[in-house]
């Protein structure tokens, strides 16, 4: 697929349809992939990569990219198209300035899961018939493919591209995922157990802001946490409450807008399952106000920006689940 993508990108650059291409390039290690913008055929040939590690969602970069002159080609996986659509809906991306090529999605690999097997000195990882062949400086190792996939891919919600100008490869369907399993499990715990769970998790936070910086819903010109006028600006936590506050408010700010792309948890260096907070909101919204998938379209009203006169009262929180 990588070859087909490079070929198509070169064509579009050559005929002037687009001025830039956003995709991924390799870093120091094979698995160390970062999103990158390419402007020439040479750059594409040299650096462009699309493999089992290109999990990063590039749609957020289009906010800044579409503020520039000219048109950009974006390769979007199914999950990325939801984020893209949501950003178009919020007027953050100028749709006219993007040429979207839908590409097949994951599952993508999580290098941390490979490393967790005690495999170090990794040079390259190849998927051969769902067995990973891992070349290391200590020799070749293998492990089953599905044991190394990203958490977000394991509970993939959709293989469908909700927006594209053309497709490379097949379009898929919305999946019947098990993504709320963990949320449900937590809901069924006692309040004390839930509290203990989150205290353990959130106290690991080092406020590196990676979750915020990667989140396609967090595209504010100026984040409230960086704004002294908001009253909650804070980089280094001044007291024990800050992380808690940060994550609740962040989850609340993206509630009804989060497409559940799972990037927050993917990039968290402390492995905090931040996506669970977002999924809790999504699950509540689905259950209380009707099914809603952010980014599935560009016209529907976000659940928090609308209401129904017969909405439930907050006492519903008392009526369900475990105290």
């Amino acid at each position: 697929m990588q070859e087909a993508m490079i070929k198509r990108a070169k064509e579009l650059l050559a005929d002037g349809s687009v001025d830039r291409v956003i995709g991924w390039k390799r870093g120091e290690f094979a698995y160390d992939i970062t999103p990158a913008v390419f402007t020439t055929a040479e750059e594409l040939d040299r650096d462009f990569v699309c493999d089992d590690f290109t999990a990063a969602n590039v749609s957020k970069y289009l906010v800044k990219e579409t503020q520039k002159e000219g048109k950009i080609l974006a390769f979007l996986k199914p999950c990325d198209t939801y984020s893209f659509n949501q950003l178009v809906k919020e007027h953050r991306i100028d749709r006219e300035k993007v040429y979207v090529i839908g590409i097949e999605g994951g599952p993508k690999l999580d290098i941390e899961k490979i490393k967790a097997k005690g495999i170090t000195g990794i040079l390259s990882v190849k998927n051969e018939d769902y067995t990973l062949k891992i070349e290391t400086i200590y020799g070749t190792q293998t492990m089953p493919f599905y044991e190394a996939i990203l958490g977000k891919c394991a509970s993939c919600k959709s293989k469908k591209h909700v927006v594209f100008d053309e497709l490379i490869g097949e379009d898929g369907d919305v999946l019947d995922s098990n993504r709320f399993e963990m949320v449900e499990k937590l809901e069924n715990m006692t309040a004390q157990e839930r509290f203990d769970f989150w205290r353990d998790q959130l106290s690991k936070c080092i406020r590196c802001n990676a979750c915020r910086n990667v989140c396609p819903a967090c595209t504010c010109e100026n984040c409230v946490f960086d704004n002294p006028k908001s009253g909650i600006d804070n980089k280094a936590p001044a007291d024990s409450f800050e992380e808690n506050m940060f994550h609740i408010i962040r989850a609340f700010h993206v509630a009804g807008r989060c497409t559940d792309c799972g990037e927050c948890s993917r990039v968290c260096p402390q492995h905090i399952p931040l996506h669970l907070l977002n999924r809790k909101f999504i699950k509540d919204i689905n259950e209380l106000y009707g099914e809603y998938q952010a980014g599935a379209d560009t016209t529907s009203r976000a659940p928090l920006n609308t209401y129904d006169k017969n909405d439930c009262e907050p006492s519903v929180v008392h009526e369900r689940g475990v105290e």
Partner: protein
Amino acid sequence: MQVNENFEPVIVAFCCNWCSYAGADLSGTNRLNYPTNVKIIRVPCSCRVNPMFILRAFQKGADGVIICGCHPGDCHYTSGNYFTRRRITLLYSMLDFLGIERNRTRLEWVSAAEGAKFAATMQQFTEDVKALGPNRRLEDLRCRKQ
């Protein structure tokens, strides 16, 4: 859990100017008693209450937060309390998900004519929060389990 008999909770009440704040005034005019623990902050509409304010209150040591607004359908601004209802329902559900005691937060509709309901609600809420004891869960997330 140890219940401290002398525990006096700090309770912040956000009241919309048109209904609930007037309802609170009415309970005063009618000399209906409720605990001094409750301190009211006037907001134009319950939809003005940002989740940040609620979290900030807990952060700064509040033991309970209650929001009061016009009854659904009676909002002075037509629809404000409908938005409030969604936002606050989701927020309270999230706080519950994080293991924060449910009885520390409440949303109640109190009209300008419901002075008695206001006093009774505050009385009950204060008792509920008192029973829970001081709010610790929202403060010590940094402390790892010993």
